[in-house]
Each structure stands twice: as C-alpha cells, then as structure tokens.
C-alpha cells in the first residue's frame, strides 16, 4: 500500500490538539432527586461541577494529518473515543479546544437517524438521500442501484412495505445501501461492515473499496481487525481519548493485539 504515500501528499484532514467534552445534566453522584435538581438551579452562578453537570472528556488532545488516498482505521476498546473523534472531524460535535481542518465536507456514513420506521423502504431511500444532501435527480438516477444493492427485493416486493416490517438484517442492509450511494470527499464509516449476512458483507466491503477510490480519504471505525486489515493502510489507535499509536496497519495492529491479549 506504500504507493499511495509517494508523490503528491495533499492533506485532507488536519486535527490539531483536539479536545471534545460532553456535558451530562443531573448526573451528579447518583442523586437524581428533585431536591438535588433544585439546589442545582439555585447554584446557577457557580461552576459546572457544583451544579451537578458532569463532564466527560472523550477526546484528549489528538493531533494527526490525514492525506488524500489514505484509508485510516480507528481502533481502541469501547468508549475510547473513536466515534466521538469521527463526529468531531465531520464537524458534528463542537470542539472544546483545538481545531479540525478539512478539505471539503467530510461525511459520516450513517443515515439511520434520518430514516423513519413507519415509512416504506421506497420513501426512506428518497428521504435518506435528501438528508445526505443529494438532489432529487441524483436520487432518481441511483434509486434502482440502491434497491438492487441492498438486495431487499430478492425475497419479494419488500421495498414498498414500511421499514418496521423488515428484519434487523434487512433494515441494516438498506441503511448501508442508502448511505453508500453518495460520493464523498472524506468518508467516515462507523462499524458499518458488521451488518448483514456473509454475502452482503462481502458486497459492502467491495463498495467501501470503490468509495475509497473515489473519495479523498476514508476513516473506518471497527472492532474487527480483519476488516481493518482488508481495507486500511494506516491505523490510529485511541485509548482513553488519547492517541496511543499512529502508523502502518500491520505495525499498529500487532501492538494492539499484544495489548488486548489476542
């Protein structure tokens, strides 16, 4: 994979000492009672900690530069800040400190939140496409591809049924198909490969490779070391919100596997 690193190294994403902090209301040491809430309001003027607002420091000072043509895997144990980091790169979570610079608009491959279970698959394809910023013409053009790719209609005319009637696997396949229909400058995938049956997984890995060719840079969050090996040429290892290691896939994965005791 070294050929992608030679020649013109154009940065597409630069993270500069990035910190992300979540604030959780009313999570002070187990006291969720009304009196606790009242005292919180009365102490409005004092600092966050006294008002029972707990801070969760999810990403602590991460810096890296990603280049065009790279596919970067993000690994780390649960709660290490991988998804948060992706959202911050996409500009969806405001940074507490530090900055992220990007080339074009990075997009998260995930359209789940815009879809509605009570609507038919057909309307969800249109709604999801519009939510991702596609035009009506683009959606019309790709509609058939999306449906064919998802394989929803292989077992009958399911696309005209509400999504709540789908099995969880079918719904996940349709979601992935919609999300993968758009071309992106910087593409970020959060555990999307784990869905569907073996056949669909193969097909989606194929599609990721395609997207990677079209996109400038791909980020992939996964707990599946094999899919990281198959798709990525560089890996960032996060632990407790800090960047623990950054390097070529094999090197980092070897250390990671030693760490996790695999």
């Amino acid at each position: 994979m070294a050929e992608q690193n030679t020649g013109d190294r154009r940065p597409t994403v630069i993270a500069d000492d990035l910190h992300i902090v979540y604030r959780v209301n009313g999570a002070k040491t187990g006291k969720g009672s009304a009196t606790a809430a009242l005292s919180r309001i009365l102490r409005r003027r004092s600092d966050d900690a006294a008002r029972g607002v707990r801070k969760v420091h999810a990403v602590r000072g991460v810096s890296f530069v990603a280049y065009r043509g790279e596919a970067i895997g993000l690994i780390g144990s649960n709660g290490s800040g991988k998804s948060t980091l992706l959202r911050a790169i996409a500009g969806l979570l405001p940074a507490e400190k530090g900055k992220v610079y990007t080339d074009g608009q990075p997009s998260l491959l995930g359209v789940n939140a815009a879809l509605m279970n009570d609507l038919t698959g057909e309307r969800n394809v249109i709604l999801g496409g519009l939510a991702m910023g596609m035009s009506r013409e683009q959606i019309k053009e790709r509609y058939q591809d999306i449906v064919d790719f998802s394989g929803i209609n292989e077992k009958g005319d399911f696309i005209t049924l509400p999504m709540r009637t789908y099995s969880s696997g079918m719904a996940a396949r349709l979601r992935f198909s919609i999300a993968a229909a758009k071309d992106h400058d910087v593409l970020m995938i959060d555990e999307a490969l784990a869905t569907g049956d073996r056949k669909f997984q193969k097909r989606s890995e194929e599609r990721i490779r395609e997207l990677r060719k079209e996109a400038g840079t791909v980020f992939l969050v996964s707990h599946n070391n094999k899919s990281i090996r198959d798709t990525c040429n560089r890996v960032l290892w996060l632990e407790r919100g800090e960047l623990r290691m950054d390097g070529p896939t094999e090197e980092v994965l070897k250390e990671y596997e030693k760490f996790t005791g695999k």
Partner: protein
Amino acid sequence: MSETTHDGTVAVTEAAPPDEGLTAAQLAAKYGLAVSGARPSLVEYVRQLWGRRHFILAFSQAKLTAQYSQAKLGQLWQVATPLLNAAVYFFIFGLILHASRGMSRDVYIPFLVTGVFVFTFTQSSVMSGVRAISGNLGLVRALHFPRASLPVSFSLQQLQQLLFSMIVLFLVAIGFGSYPDMSWLLIVPVLALQFLFNTGLALIMARAGAKTPDLAQLMPFVMRTWMYASGVMFSIPIMLDDKPRWIATVLQWNPAAIYMDLMRFALIDGYGSENLPDHVWAVAGGWAVLFAVGGFVYFWKAEERYGRG
C-alpha cells in the same frame, strides 16, 4: 503497555519533507483546508438552507405520514382529529359555559372552531420547535445540514396539518351559513403571515430548547395561558367590556389573536371588520417579519453549537 512514545507518533504522521515544520494552521492554509463545523455567514446559511428545501419538505411530509401510519383508519385521522377537537370545545364552551356572549349560534360555532384551529397551529409549532433540536440529536450528530432545516420543517408539518383542518373548517363555516365568497381569498395571506410568525417562533424555541430541554415541560402551561388570553373561545372586546379599553386592545394586538381574528373575518359572514383592532394588517405583517427575521438570526448565531450533549 506499549513502548511507543508520543514523539514516535509524530514522526510517522508528518513525514512529508516539504511541509515539515509547518504548524497545523499553516499546513491547513497552504492546502486550502477550512475549519470543520464552523458557522457559515448569514448569506451563505440562507443559500445552504435553500439548497435543502427538498429535504425540508420531504422530512415534514414524512413526519406527517408517519404519525398515523399504525392506525387502522390511517390518514383519515388527519381530518378526524381536528373535527373531534372542535366538537369537544363546542361541548364545553358552547353548550355548558355559554361563552358565546354577544354572538349568534351561526357566528359562534365557526368563530370557536377557527380560533381552536388557528391557535393550535401556533401552539404545535412552538411545541415541536422546542424539541426540534433536542429531540433529534441523533440526526444532528450524524448528518450535515443547516440546523434551521429542522424547526422550519416542523413548522411546515404543522402548516400541512392545518390545511387538513381547513377542510373541516370550511364544512363548519358552510354548515352555519357562511358561504364561500371573495373574502375567503384573504385566507391565503393570513396563513402565509402566520406561518412566517410560527416559523420564527419555532426557531427561537429550538435554540432555547437545545440549551434547556426543560422548556418542553414548561411550554404547555405558557401556551395554555396564552390561549386563554387570546380569546380563542370568547370575543375579547365583549368579555372585557367593563375593563379599561386599553387592556382589550393590547390583548387583541397579540399575534395569536390577530391571526385568529383575521381568519374569522375572512371566513365568517357575520363577523365584520368592527371586531378587528385598528391597523390589523400592519400589525399582522409586523409580527410576521419581526419574528421570522429575528428568529432566524437568533437561531443562526448558535449554529455551530447544536449537537453538543
């Protein structure tokens, strides 16, 4: 523990010789990278929002359809719900409390139904506005779009809901002897102005609700107070006849009362211009522009902060 040091990390990342020694900001400037998640200018924001108009419309229609998709009667509830609503208010205020003082039955029933429907439009726009961001954090944190799309889309959903209610309203008006004439055309500007006002209010509530989700608990009481003060089920000047004149004027100039009165004036034959306050159209337009512009700017000012949990 791994023996990789922080220095080792940096060495791998910034290996490109010509860019060595540049700070992140300089590197970004050299290759024309922009800060992710920065707030666009107001003009750019309007342009982005316009670019998402198809999404806004599709989202509002989807919400509207999804509402009743599990019910056996399905979309029939779009019309049945406002009809039942009107029946309940007629039963309580018309038959039991006799709030119709000073109006004949033929005027009072369409008067009441219009009031209920028009006020519900504002009320539900406010309520869905409060939750527009805080209730859709998943969407806000997953996809990129001008956040104003959400409150605008919810107000649009309420407008479509009102258009279904208007079918009921027309039937009630005709049933009580107010037949369609030229004055019914006034419905269009009234609805347009009220929609502008509601959207502005929804934008303000959306920003407030994103910061303080507790407002969703509080707003029903505020809205109910507003409803009783706006003369939904009684005529303000007649009810306040024995009070100083200015109280009635102030109440009549409040935006909810203005839009209700204009709609009644347009629809009901027996409800003439003597029931309208002075300068009614100017006030109606003023509220609409003030809230639409003010609400939009107020919402835009916090654009980059929506989504922080």
